[in-house]
């Protein structure tokens, strides 16, 4: 006998679309679940499978910098809204929301610190502030961090995590590419080293500018490092994507990175490089 069928379509019409979004503290690779403090202690790396969770800028700075050594700079530089940009919501509203949710003024935190006693300038991006997107404020803060590094003669350690340029600032966000490139070139000319750690994801405008110009460039395992992300490549070209398309591992194989450095090893790796770059005979 045929089962009586009830048409549930109507009820489901307004149900939220099915989502595979898990709790942010659940490992997307192996499903292990952690408390915040467990992850913070483990540098936001899954103890079971080694997956790297996103790490907030302040957590990373607290860990990279010798205790109490970090002095934040340029906190007052904030985004403006030169285009009166309004998509589904006003840009200014998105900015205030990002500030409320992250406790940050912008998607990058810069300042001076020491790492194992080496004086450095730090520029660390935070993906949770509007996808780490680069607008005029991010470009200005990064460029001034380059200047600070030049003035004090201290290496620049830059950590990137960004979806690219901030569309809400239109052409001015694109201009942050040449702007930060010029700042890095000034840094290169002054003979000041720049070490870059690419975290997930480092894409589009940030990859196509300062992120790619470090003297040494390393990435975190599994980080997406691509000018154009897999979804857009797939949609535009209908090409079949390799399994590791755009990942750090593929970038290393093709010669775009110096190394993949798991988070727990980064501090000692940076420390060794800082020692090497300081070892010039004068």
């Amino acid at each position, binding site marked *: 006998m045929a089962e009586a069928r009830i048409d549930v379509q109507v009820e489901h019409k307004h149900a939220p679309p099915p989502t595979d979004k898990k709790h942010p503290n659940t490992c997307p690779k192996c499903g292990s679940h952690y408390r915040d403090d467990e992850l913070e202690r483990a540098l936001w790396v899954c103890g079971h499978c080694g997956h790297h969770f996103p790490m907030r800028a302040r957590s990373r700075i607290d860990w990279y910098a010798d205790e109490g050594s970090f002095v934040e700079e340029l906190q007052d530089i904030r985004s*403006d809204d030169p285009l009166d940009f309004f998509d589904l919501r006003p840009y200014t509203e998105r900015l205030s929301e990002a500030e409320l949710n992250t406790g940050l003024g912008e998607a990058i935190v810069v300042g001076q610190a020491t790492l194992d006693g080496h004086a450095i300038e730090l520029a660390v991006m935070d993906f949770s502030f509007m996808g780490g997107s680069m607008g005029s404020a991010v470009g200005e803060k990064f460029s001034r961090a380059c200047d600070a590094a030049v003035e004090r003669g201290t290496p620049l350690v830059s950590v990137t995590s960004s979806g690219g340029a901030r569309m809400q600032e*239109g*052409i*001015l966000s694109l201009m942050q*590419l040449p702007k930060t490139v*010029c700042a890095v*070139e000034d840094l290169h000319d002054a003979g000041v080293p720049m070490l870059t750690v690419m975290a997930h994801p480092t894409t589009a405008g940030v990859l196509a500018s300062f992120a790619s110009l470090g003297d040494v460039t390393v990435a975190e395992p599994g980080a997406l490092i691509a*000018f154009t992300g897999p979804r857009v490549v797939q949609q535009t070209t209908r090409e079949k994507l390799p399994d590791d398309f755009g990942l750090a591992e593929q970038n290393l194989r093709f010669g775009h990175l110096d190394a993949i450095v798991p988070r727990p090893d980064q501090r000692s790796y940076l420390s060794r490089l800082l020692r090497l770059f300081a070892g010039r005979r004068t």
Partner: protein
Amino acid sequence: VSEQEQEVNLRQRLSGLSRLPLLRGARVDGEAERLERQLERLKAEATDEEIWRSVELARHPDRPYTLDYVERILDDWVELHGDRSRADDGALVTGLGMLDGRTVALIGHQKGRDVKERLDRQFGMAYPEGYLKAMRLMEIAARFGFPVISLIDTPGAYPGVAAEQHGQGGAIARSQAAMSRLQVPTVACIIGEGGSGGAVAIAVADTVLMQENAIYSVITPEGCAAILWRDAGEAKRAAAAFKPDAAHCLELGVIDGVVPEPEGGAQLDHDAAAVLLKAVLMEALAELEDTPGEELRRRRRAKFRGMGVFA
């Protein structure tokens, strides 16, 4: 900035432009008038339709492309092929030619006119190999003191698997860096679509110009609409929101001047468009000619480092 201040600002820029010798000739009145009209349009808050019209003209299939200008502007053109590493990218052409009796190095995106050529040239979307080729030309220019002219006309850098594997992001970054190091005069002009990283990769110049109906943007209107409106069909609204037209780019300090086109657009008269472009390129180069290379580089970097609006 209030609307009034904006207007004053733009007026100052326009008056700066009209001081250029280029705008002194017989054409000046007409061009200045046209710019005035652009100002009026800006004041009246250009409608979505008007901004969309510049998007359509910038992408017009009959619009002159780089090689159409090359044959009308340069003598003794020799195209130089290949990046000396992997390939010759047809989406970006490079070569040497004479502009009014002096040798210049020219770099430009190239779109195709028919289906086959369009495919061969990837619709003007360069691979990293294209930017490597551009850097090779910059090296030659630096070595021999040739000024660099770049003509920009691309929807964006090629978004494919091989392009990523060959290092698209890094190539765009390094091409900008190479331009920022040059100690020769550099002039860039957006002659159609100035699409995102693929465009700015060869646009870090002392003087950056836009043709009247060109567009310069961080993302295509369709791409922006797909992300922010979640509907590529909202491209018109997206374009209106991020204002990729020449007048707005001038107002935001992103470009240094607007190159007039024949009435109705460059697609209607390639010869006339080339005459106007040539005149502006020559004037722009003449303005840079006497400045020492080191000073050019310092000013160029300072200009780009000053871009952006923040609180």
